[in-house]
């Protein structure tokens, strides 16, 4: 079970604005999904090793060097920004 207030809290952590109606809806839907996935609590896995990936690869390092030296790349990427100023991304104000 996940309450409307909990949904409100998660949505804020996830940076998603929800209307009152949506909070209601997601609280119901997420509760039924959580009910289902709660079946994992039946398993005693205290001694089981946990896995985060399947290939067993360890950290793979490379030199910290730029490979792409194309001078146009920066412009191609900046062109995708909703708002920019010269060579910078434009960000809404953070401090008053």
């Amino acid at each position: 079970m996940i309450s409307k207030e909990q949904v409100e809290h998660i949505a804020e952590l996830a940076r998603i604005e929800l209307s009152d109606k949506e909070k209601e809806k997601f609280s119901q839907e997420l509760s039924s999904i959580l009910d289902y996935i709660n079946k994992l609590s039946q398993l005693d896995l205290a001694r089981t090793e946990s896995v985060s990936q399947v290939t067993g690869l360890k950290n793979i390092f490379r030199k910290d060097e730029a490979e792409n030296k194309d001078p146009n790349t920066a412009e191609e990427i900046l062109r995708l920004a909703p708002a920019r100023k010269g060579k910078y991304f434009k960000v809404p104000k953070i401090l008053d």
Partner: protein
Amino acid sequence: MELKDFSINKIHKSLIKKEFSATELVKLYFDRIKKEEEVNDFLMLTENLALEQAKKIDEKILRREKPQGLEGIPIALKDNILVKGYKTTAGSKILKDYIAPYDATVTRKLKEAGAIILGKTNLDEFAMGSSTENSAFGPVKNPLDQSRVAGGSSGGSAAAVAAHHAVAALGSDTGGSIRQPAAFCGIIGFKPSYGMVSRYGLIAMASSLDQIGPMAKNVDDIKIIFNTIKGKDDFDATTLDFSQEKEDFIVTKELKIGVPKEYFGSGIDKDVKKEIEKAIAKFVNLGCAVQEISLPYTDYALAVYYIIAPAEISANLARYDGIKYGFSSSEESKSKPQDLLTHYLYTRAKGFGDEVRRRIMLGTYVLSAGYRDAYYNQAQKARKMIIDDFQKAFSSYKKVDFILTPTTPTPAFKIGERKDPLAMYLSDIYTVPASLAGLPAISMPCGTVNHLPIGIQIIGPQFRDQAVLEVAELFESIS
């Protein structure tokens, strides 16, 4: 020859014999796609790119140079795979105007091999869904029955191949997104072992599960494309190098097949079950030995998936902030001055659809303080049990060579029929376990139920992708 009869090899031979030019072929496909646009399988056609590629190949043939295997072959790419200079939306409003600044590794390899890219196919938003109904650009219709879904999330790629709008297509599979739509549309869909194909330039969903793979009408086409796109890539550190490895697997008629009893329980449609049993009997007739096996943690796989995938989704999709690229809240409220937090909240509320928001919130919840142990950590341990289930079946316990299961519990359902998110999740119940274990798995068409195609899934041991394809070819030859 008609579009429905085309395969990579047939086109290759026709191009050499000059029965048609690559340009004529590409135009034939575009005409067909446009005539049947109600299928809604393509989000965008890359006509200029395709015609330019075709022209180069025609010139080469005119110079009497022999084209390579994939040269001039028209294929489609799921719209979460980047093609430089063209829109890549991932089926989301938040990326509706995003122009890819580079080629995905698979795109680069296909271009270098001379494959012609026809366009980008429709998908559930950010590949999250099992019906393509979560696309911000409308659902894909199943070409075999337009009142039904094509499956998802690679529904556009599956429909494009089934409708003969492309010879083959690439899809991506996180929990079944290649295999399930392939089954629903009556085509073949192959999810390689995790680590076989680079995801560089694939828009990330759940990074410990995402894998790119081919969708086509025959196993030979699947093999040609897989062998073109696979391999180690410096831009995706999870890829492995298998170029030196020799395949010692020889398909004999004495293969040992495991049939896990957990895949034939109460959830399966009884007619689907009958068809799968008939298909298994065909292997027995060949001389293969069938054994019932047990994969006891199967019942927990979907729960594990719906913790791990959303957790990774919530992290991967944090990048959509309306600042670096994509939809921004400032587009819809130009006059209103905003602070940064309000900007994030509005951008992500308006840019993401319901299923994406649901999974981001679910992932945020299972990773949040106080819940992480009960959900995320528990799921990572249960994932180990699922991996061990398969390993035991392939090695110590029954030593089967491969495993056969249904791909889906039912045939394609009606558009609009599954409104409840959990009911939709259950569509992937038979495809999720192989994803969690990173195993190669292919869905092959096998019979119909009420005129709707269904698929049988062949799962092999980790990194035995070629073996799975051999077995698929064997099945193709007897069905």
